[in-house]
């Protein structure tokens, strides 16, 4: 999923991987993509210059959203980019979910209609500005030809074309039909960013007014005539199958309609979720647990530690690492990260109506076209007979980059002739997730004259991208797993990065908000703090001395030191920790201040983050994403761990898979730097920042160098040593 933000792409180019990778990435996927179909809405009576813009005769401006809204604010930001170059009247802008169509709406980075890797704005920044500017030029041409003047003598602003010399004006609504007949110009000029009037303003989000009054419709809210409700139990052991099912008690319950037995899952359909749930509880199911019934997390960790001793595929090697590591002071450490569940607040769901010759789906997904093609396979229908209606997502976080819930719902819906809404309980959602993999990151480094002279870094863990997008896995390197490791921001003269693919048995692994940089930013920034201490230097000064070639990173680091009160005296067992990160082409420095009490419990006191994300399309959304991302990452650092025993996930709901709550949330200050650079990604970046900054605050406060997450309080009780 990682694909290529500009930084890691550059890094890959230097390592010689990119040519094969990029070819593989784009060509076959585009060729294999679905045949184009027209967008579902009619364009009759409208100005529809491209797949994204629809203006009717009243001036109502509907923008089709190629990316999905899961809280990250992309509907507003994408609209701002389109509306800016269109010179639309922002107050008349409305948004619509795009239908599945890779040709029209495929994310330019992936060639697939995918929302992920914090790249919506990066991927669409130029294409959508061009789409907006082309449409604007056609509206201007229409007005100019009506007035018999040169298009160049006209201007456009807030949904109107004006001819200043004669004082004439026409609204986009009045021009819609005439503009539809214009030939789209080639090579339209884009605005100079200093002339932006919408981009860069703290815009009110377009999706939030309906989210305060219950009107917003998520996938789980779909209602259809004659619809029934289902809930499911999958085999508790990974890879296990259904054996025998006794449904005699369940079928006697009021409101229970049908029991559907699939290969690895049983569903009960009822008049409402409650009947389905009671029915499921009343089933007697014997499972064929299969070969994975003895798997434990402990064994998985032993295997991963063993695998991480092997040499990996070399992703990057600059200088002479062998020589560098035998000079100076040597440092070795390994950092370990657990399995994590996504736990979106909207539990997994999909509503499906299968008819003899069609299949219609209502859900919220990050992968519109993949859902369509997978549903077609499950339904035994051609792709063009599958209609997918996307919705707002009640959180995605990578879980909805998978189609499994839709495939299962189609198989259930095939058994009945009415629409069925399949909703997983929270317990199923947590126990049958596609988990953030366990990672082990080993670092060997040497210090000479207080600076890092050699840096050897080895990632061991799942290759999520290899499963999710096989052509992107080249020469043994998973570019997601090494993201933010190959492009660590520091000047390391001798710099070597390896990757060992190590798949846990049976446990499905997938993308989790923050993706590859989660493991690498953590390991790099923890090691940098330990190296600073070994060198006898302040953690920020130590980093600064190796950021001389990275002015944007250096600038945010300097600013966060000032804004966070870095260096000011703190009480005992209170510490500040820093994290710098180059993730998603954004440059972010964060300081967490935390207190550790005598039994090792942690109180977050204050967080300061300085963000250079280039041009911030909606600066308020950038702030919100960092605030929320920090909480998401800190939740994982404080509590997040999925463990497995007897092949089963041991956690089940929010009582044992804990989330941070408001009473644990400190003051968070996010400063967004003004910048003219191209926009970076922001939706996941905050997640990367929290865990290392907190861990380093704990290191400062207690001297204990934690090397595993989640944080083990027992190691932090007063009197414990590193």
């Amino acid at each position, binding site marked *: 999923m990682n694909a290529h933000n500009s930084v890691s792409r550059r890094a890959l180019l230097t390592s010689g991987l990119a040519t094969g990778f990029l070819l593989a990435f784009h060509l076959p996927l585009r060729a294999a993509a679905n045949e184009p179909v027209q967008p579902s809405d009619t364009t009759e009576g409208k100005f529809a210059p491209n797949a994204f813009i629809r203006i009717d005769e009243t001036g109502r401006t509907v923008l089709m959203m190629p990316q999905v809204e*899961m*809280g*990250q*604010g992309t509907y507003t930001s994408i609209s701002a980019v389109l509306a800016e170059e269109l010179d639309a009247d922002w107050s008349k802008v409305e948004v619509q979910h795009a239908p599945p169509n890779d040709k029209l709406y495929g994310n330019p980075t992936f060639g697939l209609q995918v929302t992920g890797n914090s790249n919506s704005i990066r991927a669409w920044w130029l294409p959508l500005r061009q789409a907006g500017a082309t449409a604007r030029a056609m509206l201007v041409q229409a007005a100019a030809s009506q007035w018999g003047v040169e298009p160049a003598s006209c201007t456009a602003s807030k949904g109107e074309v004006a001819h200043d010399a004669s004082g004439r004006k026409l609204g986009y609504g009045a021009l819609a039909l005439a503009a539809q007949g214009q030939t789209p110009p080639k090579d339209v000029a884009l605005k100079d960013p200093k002339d932006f009037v919408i981009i860069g303003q703290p815009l*009110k*989000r377009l*999706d*939030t007014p309906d*989210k*305060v*009054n*219950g*009107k*917003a*419709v*998520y996938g*789980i*809210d779909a*209602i259809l005539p004659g619809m029934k*409700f289902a809930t499911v139990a999958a085999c508790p052991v990974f890879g296990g199958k259904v054996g025998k099912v006794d449904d005699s008690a369940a079928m006697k319950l*009021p*409101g229970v309609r049908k029991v559907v037995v699939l290969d690895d899952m049983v569903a009960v359909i009822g*008049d*409402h*979720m*409650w009947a389905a749930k009671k029915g499921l509880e009343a089933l007697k199911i014997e499972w064929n647990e299969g070969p994975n019934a003895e798997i434990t997390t402990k064994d998985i960790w032993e295997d991963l530690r063993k695998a991480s001793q092997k040499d990996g595929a070399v992703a990057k090697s600059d200088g002479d690492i062998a020589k560098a590591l035998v000079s100076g002071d040597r440092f070795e450490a390994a950092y370990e990260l657990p399995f994590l569940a996504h*736990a*979106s*607040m*909207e*539990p997994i769901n999909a509503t499906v109506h299968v008819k003899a010759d069609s299949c219609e789906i209502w859900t919220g997904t990050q992968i519109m076209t993949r859902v369509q093609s997978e549903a077609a396979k499950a339904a035994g229908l051609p792709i063009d007979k599958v209609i997918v209606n996307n919705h*707002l*997502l*009640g*959180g*995605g*976080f990578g879980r909805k980059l998978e189609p499994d819930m839709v495939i299962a719902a189609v198989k259930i819906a095939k058994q009945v002739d009415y629409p069925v809404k399949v*909703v997983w309980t*929270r317990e199923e959602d947590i126990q049958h997730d596609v988990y953030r993999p366990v990672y082990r990151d080993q670092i060997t480094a040497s210090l000479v004259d207080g600076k890092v002279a050699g840096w050897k870094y080895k990632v061991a863990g799942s290759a999520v991208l290899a499963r999710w997008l096989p052509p992107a896995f080249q020469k043994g390197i998973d570019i997601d797993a090494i993201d933010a490791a190959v492009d660590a921001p520091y000047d390391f003269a001798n710099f070597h990065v390896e990757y060992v693919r190590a798949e846990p048995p049976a446990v499905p692994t997938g993308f989790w908000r923050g993706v590859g940089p989660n493991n690498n930013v953590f390991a790099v920034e923890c090691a940098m703090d330990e190296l600073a201490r070994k060198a006898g230097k302040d953690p920020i000064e130590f980093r600064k001395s190796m950021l001389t070639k990275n002015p944007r990173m250096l600038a945010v680091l300097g600013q966060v030191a000032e804004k966070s009160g870095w260096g000011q005296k703190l009480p005992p067992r209170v510490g500040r920790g820093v994290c710098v990160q180059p993730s998603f082409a954004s440059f972010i420095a964060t300081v967490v201040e935390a207190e550790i009490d005598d039994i090792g419990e942690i109180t977050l006191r204050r967080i300061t983050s300085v963000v250079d994300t280039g041009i911030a399309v909606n600066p*308020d959304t950038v702030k*919100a*994403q960092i*605030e*929320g*991302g*920090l*909480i*998401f990452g800190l*939740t994982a650092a404080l509590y997040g761990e999925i463990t497995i025993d007897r092949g089963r996930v041991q956690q089940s*709901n*929010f*009582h044992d898979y804990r*989330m*941070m*709550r*408001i*009473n644990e*949330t400190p*003051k*968070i200050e996010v400063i967004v730097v003004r910048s003219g650079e191209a926009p970076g990604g922001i939706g996941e970046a905050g997640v990367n920042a929290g865990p290392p900054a907190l861990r380093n605050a704990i290191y400062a406060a207690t001297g204990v160098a934690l090397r595993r997450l989640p944080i083990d309080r027992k190691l932090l009780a007063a009197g414990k040593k590193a």
Partner: protein
Amino acid sequence: MHMATTLTINGETKSFDAPPEMPLLWVLRDILGMTGTKFGCGIAQCGACTVHVDGKAVRSCVLPVSAVANRTVTTIEHVGSTPAGAKVQKAWLEAEVIQCGYCQSGQIMAAAALLAATPNPDDSDIDAAMAGNICRCGTYVRIREAIKHAANGRQS
């Protein structure tokens, strides 16, 4: 055994058949088609399903419908007609609290009940009233700010 149940929801009388032990959440969502109230955990751990019963915030996912007969139920669809609810909704938009929004029906119901009972809550009042509501997007900083704005009637 299904029984005819009558409830007053958002000022309207609603009659329907439901088993008495069926949680109010599923009556609202799956029988009455009122989907503003959300399912999050089913065990009163997350607060996404929060509604008002006689003005108090309760978790509808564990509240048997038989327990609310003859009581007044208010949901997110109608909370804007109460003074505290309207203030909270306005403050939520002014502070741009919301991200994915899925938990926010519950957050708003909890905050409206807090302000109706405690017009000027301090941080510990906010913690006590709101700690039962999980937001996976992590909007807590803005929730706190919005509650204070709503309490003071300040414009942001």
